[in-house]
């Protein structure tokens, strides 16, 4: 299988080759083979992926290798023996468990989910069969997740192509298609927060169930689907991977002319642009704007990045058929400069990482320029047919989530409020009066059941204000909450512009001496940086620590490429070094006595 004998790989060149144009099967095969044969290149993050399936997984191994390389991660892959899904997962001494994966892919197939029941089997019989399958998968997930460090990805099952009696099957619980649909629904319900799903059922529907299943390949090579669909599989796999590891994209950077309307606003004026009823293109642009509004409503931040005069550009949103208004955009970058610089300015203004942005433009030259200058930014060339813009964006799967939280739904408003607050700051004469003027109210509590998904989400995706980047999973957070000695804090902030939601969490536990409380995780959403929230939270923690009889607090800073913003957090909060500075990049420990915290001031009042 591993025929190429490559030992070293030029990772940036390999990624460029994979990302240059639409993936093809031969490219997946050759690049996937190279990755599997090569040693991890120095300086690239490694992900240990185990792949389990009851059918041939050789194709999937190569596709996932390419998918992870495209995500900037070097895959070290363990492929379980053919058909050994269940024993490998359940036996703690198996080669799989010795491999110690960071992530497991369960490449399930309808053959794992359909019982050969007579089509007339009654509801109870089918339900019992399904419950047994669900219980089996729950056992597998539990055995695989271990202490919570290992993420699980799984295929949703694809309905088999064969049918026995056409429409009548829709009344038969035992019909294979209905068994699969009901099992998927049951697994989705009980896998929430534990499993990230690869939507192979959607992929098959898009391809056509019969073409996807390819009986020829199943009988010849025991593959679950035709390998010609692997390029599309890669996109779905990447979506699940990003959801599992908190890499979902957050914001769209949109061009204006021929992207949000037809024509050039600077030349044609608001009366001359193509938008709304009257032409097919105008109707397509209006529907595209509606779709973007829908994305905003579910938490995607919208920003403009256009070569235009800002005043003239804004008139486009006064068009009678416009669905978007100027206030829908958290940033409005209009200038005649290089768009890559404009994107960097927007990212900075919104405090978002470049890797959370998607750039959309109809102009292929602009797309190339941004892709070349800012490889972290996802670029979607929209082309020249507005009727296909929605499809072009959705086909990237960039915006897919496992589940959404209340904060996701409110995020776009929160960013718009942030922008308004920033505008206020530019008007305020000093920081103190600005912060006081925000009328901030904070609330701290021990997270409850309904908060756990959000706390886990913050753990997964917070890169900047993250002192230790331990990335505790939902299971680990539950374990902390079950431990009365552990202190777990959730922080909620609102101000006069709006509700920011649950935006910071802190986890601390006693050291062995019983006198020292150690902060093992502290993180905060970047949209509330510089609001003195850290002081508000620390004062609360000091009070709590004092009440429990602790003498000192210990804080820990583990440097990463992205968390430089909190390198001096502990000294700013009155901590002194506990250990001498070690090597560059090593963890630093800080301590302070537990007292009233009167040296720390905050502009936030208790809610």
């Amino acid at each position: 299988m591993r025929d190429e004998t490559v030992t070293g790989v030029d990772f940036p060149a390999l990624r460029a080759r994979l990302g240059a144009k639409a993936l093809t099967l031969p490219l997946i095969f050759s690049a996937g083979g190279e990755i599997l044969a090569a040693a991890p290149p120095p300086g690239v993050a490694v992900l240990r992926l185990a792949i389990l399936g009851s059918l041939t997984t050789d194709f999937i191994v190569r596709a996932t290798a390419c998918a992870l390389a495209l995500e900037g991660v070097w895959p070290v892959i363990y492929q379980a023996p053919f058909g050994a899904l269940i024993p490998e997962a359940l036996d703690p001494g198996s080669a799989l468990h010795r491999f110690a994966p960071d992530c497991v892919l369960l490449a399930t197939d309808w053959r794992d989910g359909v019982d050969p029941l007579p089509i007339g089997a009654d509801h109870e019989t089918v339900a019992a069969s399904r419950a047994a399958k669900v219980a089996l998968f729950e056992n597998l997930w539990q055995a695989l997740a271990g202490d919570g460090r290992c993420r699980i990805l799984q295929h949703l099952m694809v309905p088999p192509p064969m049918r026995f009696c056409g429409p009548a099957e829709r009344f038969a619980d035992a019909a294979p298609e209905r068994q699969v649909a009901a099992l998927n629904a049951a697994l989705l319900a009980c896998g929430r927060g534990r499993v990230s799903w690869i939507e192979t059922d959607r992929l098959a529907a898009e391809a056509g169930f019969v073409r996807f299943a390819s009986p020829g390949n199943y009988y010849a090579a025991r593959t679950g689907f035709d390998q010609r669909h692997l390029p599309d599989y890669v996109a779905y796999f990447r979506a699940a991977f990003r959801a599992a590891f908190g890499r979902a994209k957050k914001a769209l950077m949109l061009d204006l002319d021929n992207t949000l309307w037809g024509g050039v606003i600077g030349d044609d004026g608001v009366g001359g642009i193509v938008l709304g009823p009257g032409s097919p293109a105008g109707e397509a642009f209006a529907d595209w704007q509606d779709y973007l509004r829908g994305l905003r409503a579910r938490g995607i931040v919208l920003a403009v990045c256009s070569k235009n005069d800002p005043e003239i550009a804004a008139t486009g949103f006064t068009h009678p058929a416009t669905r978007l208004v100027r206030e829908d955009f958290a940033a409005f970058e209009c200038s005649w400069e290089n768009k890559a610089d404009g994107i960097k300015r927007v990212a900075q203004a919104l405090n978002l990482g470049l890797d959370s942005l998607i750039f959309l433009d109809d102009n292929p030259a602009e797309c190339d320029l941004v892709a070349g200058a800012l490889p972290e930014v996802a670029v979607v060339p929209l082309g020249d047919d507005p009727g296909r813009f929605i499809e072009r964006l959705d086909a990237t799967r960039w915006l897919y989530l496992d589940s959404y939280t209340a904060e996701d739904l409110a995020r776009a408003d929160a960013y718009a409020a942030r922008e308004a607050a920033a505008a206020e700051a530019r008007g305020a004469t000093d920081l103190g009066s600005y912060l006081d003027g925000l009328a901030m109210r904070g609330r701290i509590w021990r997270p409850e059941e309904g908060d756990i998904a959000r706390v886990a989400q913050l753990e997964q995706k917070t890169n900047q204000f993250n002192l230790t980047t331990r990335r505790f999973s939902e299971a680990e957070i539950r374990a902390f909450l079950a431990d009365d000695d552990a202190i777990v804090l959730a922080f909620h902030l609102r101000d006069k512009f709006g509700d920011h939601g649950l935006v910071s969490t802190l986890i601390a536990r006693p050291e062995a001496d019983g006198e020292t409380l150690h902060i093992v995780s502290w993180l905060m959403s970047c949209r509330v940086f510089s609001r003195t929230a850290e002081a508000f939270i620390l004062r609360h923690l000091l009070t709590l620590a004092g009440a429990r009889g602790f003498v000192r607090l210990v804080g820990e800073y583990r440097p990463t490429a992205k968390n430089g913003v909190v390198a001096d957090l502990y000294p700013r909060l009155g901590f002194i070094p506990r250990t001498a500075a070690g090597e560059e990049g090593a963890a630093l420990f800080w301590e302070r006595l537990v007292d009233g915290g009167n040296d720390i001031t905050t502009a936030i009042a208790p809610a």
Partner: protein
Amino acid sequence: MSGDLLGLIAETLSLDRASLNAQSSAENTKNWDSLRQVVLMGEIESGFGIEFSAQEISEANSVAKIAAALARHGVEVSL
């Protein structure tokens, strides 16, 4: 679609077209393993607009056998 069977095989197996000839087979050709056999047959199906049976996908593991299988589906290729 052109009838360049050797070109298609070379591309799928990441080989030079010049390294292949009418006698090439899984036995004597680099990269032509059982997995690439399936990929190759899929690429030939797409390229020539035909569908092979499971038996053909599994057994047509030489240029000569592929040409024969193509002929059964009404496609003549010159090698």
